[in-house]
């Protein structure tokens, strides 16, 4: 299930160019060889030598006669289809000038290795292919660079302007059945039962009649059983309904993949599932679950001051939230804030981070100190050590130890912890969310969960 984004339309990308042509050095060499053979045959009186020059002369004349016209226009068109089954289909078409015999196409998928293919020019129509969707968010899916070859590769054009397909891919969304709630629920509407007595909720308690209680709430059986004086009345009270305010803070300042060997190069094609993939999935899943439960959700991206969505509810707001989550990406400019983002009173704060540095933890502790319930969602995917060196494994171990220290420190200070990626040997995410969703009063005083 994914929400279609404005970028998911069929938008052909076209490039028109007027190729300039360069004569191949091979033609010159062939011409020289033909002259040498013909001259040698003439001087030595060897007709066989002169005959050897004949096919070269004819071939060169043919190549010259069929050379591509100067000033002719070429057009390349790339069309992307709708994403389907974790891949996206594309169609590549070339409209080439007369005399072009082949198109050399170099493709780069997800910033990975290049792949070169030579296509027959007169039949370059609707070359199809597919690109695996390995990551969510804004990304360069594929880049095509191309150049033309004339008859017998006797003329070449320089590479034309690249065809680049950039798309925003919606993250996957997991179903969240158990929703942790803030310490205080606010408002008089919603779907969560608050501690206050009111309307809408389930049975709360039996209470002596007080001014303001409705007469139809009088529980006559209880009154008959408990009443000791003629004027004693008892009413059945129900809980009031309230909604929760949730702020999702996404730490998109770094994005490392599960392949530890790729942490330095960070190539999308080979790094595996990345921390931001997990973070986007977690953020969109939580946002969807809370909005569908009638709560208000805000969003804050730590790497950009522009990607902030104020808390609100409703489906239109959900679309706005999901869009903001989709386009999160690491920023090349570190954004250092003087004060932490403002959190609505009584809000539950989710901090989604890979916890590779102290910034997110520092903010989480600040919010916890001000009385908010804070859940740090660990989005660092489980490490894979394919093609790693011993030094890299050692460095990773040190980084993980520092990270564990951070986790231990903030848990001791009342910040809760939720690991989002599913792993085999750890409690499932569903179970962890159930634990976090239990009533929190009292337990939050000491804080460790």
């Amino acid at each position, binding site marked *: 299930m994914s929400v279609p984004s404005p970028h998911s339309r069929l938008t052909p990308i076209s490039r028109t160019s007027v190729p300039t042509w360069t004569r191949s050095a091979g033609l010159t060499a062939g011409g020289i060889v033909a002259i040498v053979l013909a001259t040698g045959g003439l001087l030595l009186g060897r007709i066989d030598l002169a005959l050897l020059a*004949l096919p070269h002369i004819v071939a060169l004349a043919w190549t010259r006669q069929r050379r591509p016209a100067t000033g002719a226009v070429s057009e390349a068109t790339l069309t992307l289809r709708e994403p389907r089954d*974790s891949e996206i289909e594309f169609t590549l078409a070339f409209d080439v000038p007369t005399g072009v015999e082949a198109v050399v196409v170099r493709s780069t998928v997800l910033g990975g290795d290049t792949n070169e293919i030579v296509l027959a020019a007169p039949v370059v129509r609707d070359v199809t292919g597919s690109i695996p969707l*390995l990551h969510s968010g804004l990304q360069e899916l594929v880049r095509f660079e191309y150049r033309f*070859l004339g008859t017998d590769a006797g003329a070449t054009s320089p590479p034309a302007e690249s065809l680049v397909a950039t798309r925003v891919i919606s993250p996957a969304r997991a179903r969240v059945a158990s929703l942790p709630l803030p310490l205080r629920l606010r408002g008089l509407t919603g779907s969560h039962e608050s501690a206050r007595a009111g309307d809408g909720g389930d049975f709360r308690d039996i209470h002596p009649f007080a001014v303001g209680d409705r007469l139809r709430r009088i529980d006559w059986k209880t009154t008959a059983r408990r009443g000791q004086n003629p004027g004693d009345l008892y009413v059945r009270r129900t809980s009031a309904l309230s909604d929760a305010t949730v702020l999702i803070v996404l730490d998109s300042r770094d994005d490392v993949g599960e392949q530890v060997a790729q942490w330095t190069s960070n190539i999308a094609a080979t790094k595996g599932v990345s921390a931001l993939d997990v973070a986007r999935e977690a953020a969109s899943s939580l946002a969807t679950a809370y909005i569908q439960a009638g709560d208000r959700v805000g969003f804050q991206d730590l790497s950009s001051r522009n990607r902030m969505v104020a808390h609100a509810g409703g489906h239109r707001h959900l679309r706005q939230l999901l869009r903001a989550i989709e386009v999160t990406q690491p920023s090349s400019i570190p954004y250092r804030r003087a004060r932490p983002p403002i959190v609505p009173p009584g809000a539950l704060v989710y901090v989604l981070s890979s916890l590779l540095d102290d910034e997110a933890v520092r903010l989480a502790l600040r919010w916890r100190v001000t009385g908010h319930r804070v859940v740090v969602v660990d989005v660092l995917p489980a490490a894979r050590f394919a093609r790693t060196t011993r030094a890299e494994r050692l460095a990773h171990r040190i980084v993980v130890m520092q990270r564990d220290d951070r986790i231990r420190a903030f848990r001791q200070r009342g910040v809760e912890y939720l690991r989002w990626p599913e792993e085999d040997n750890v409690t499932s995410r569903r179970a962890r969310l159930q634990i976090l969703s239990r009533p929190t009063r009292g337990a939050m005083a000491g804080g460790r969960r």
Partner: protein
Amino acid sequence: MKYFGAEATPGLMRTGARVPVMAIRAVFVLVGTLMSLDVYGANGWLVVGAVFALAAAIAPQFLLAWGVIIFLAIGQLTHHAALSWRFLVLLAGLHLIHVISLWTLELPWRARVQITVFTHGLVRFLAIQVPVQLVAVLLLSLLAPRASGHRPVTIAACAVVGAAALAVLAVRFAGPQGGGPAASNPRARDSRPSRS
């Protein structure tokens, strides 16, 4: 949408049958070696030819392929100029080396090539080779000296044929345009029937 895959896989375009450029270079080495065998026979020069072809395939940018052609043409001088299947094979082989060299010069060595890229080149090769082979058979039959030293057609006969050809060309090109009597004689022009 499930995007948690492993790694991007190469070969994303569905383009039908393809061959790697390395295979084309291997064909070049094979043709060069076979031509060396054809010209020089199984001796040390064959090894030289094979190494030459290999070097030309590894580094086509140095244009060594055309050096291979010269090398093979020089080898032809050691043979008697006569019509033989060996010469006709060499005639086709040198042309093939030229064509393959032009492609290997421009194709990236890691690329894969749609087989249909070579369709037009193959047709062109045949369109050139068929008449060239016929001309070679004809000329070698007529002009190449026999083992006895006898020439079926002498130089004098060639001069007569050449002069006749020149005369035909002169009449064809000079006649209708400016040199003919119709162009120089105004009366002849006036005597044409009126179109009205």
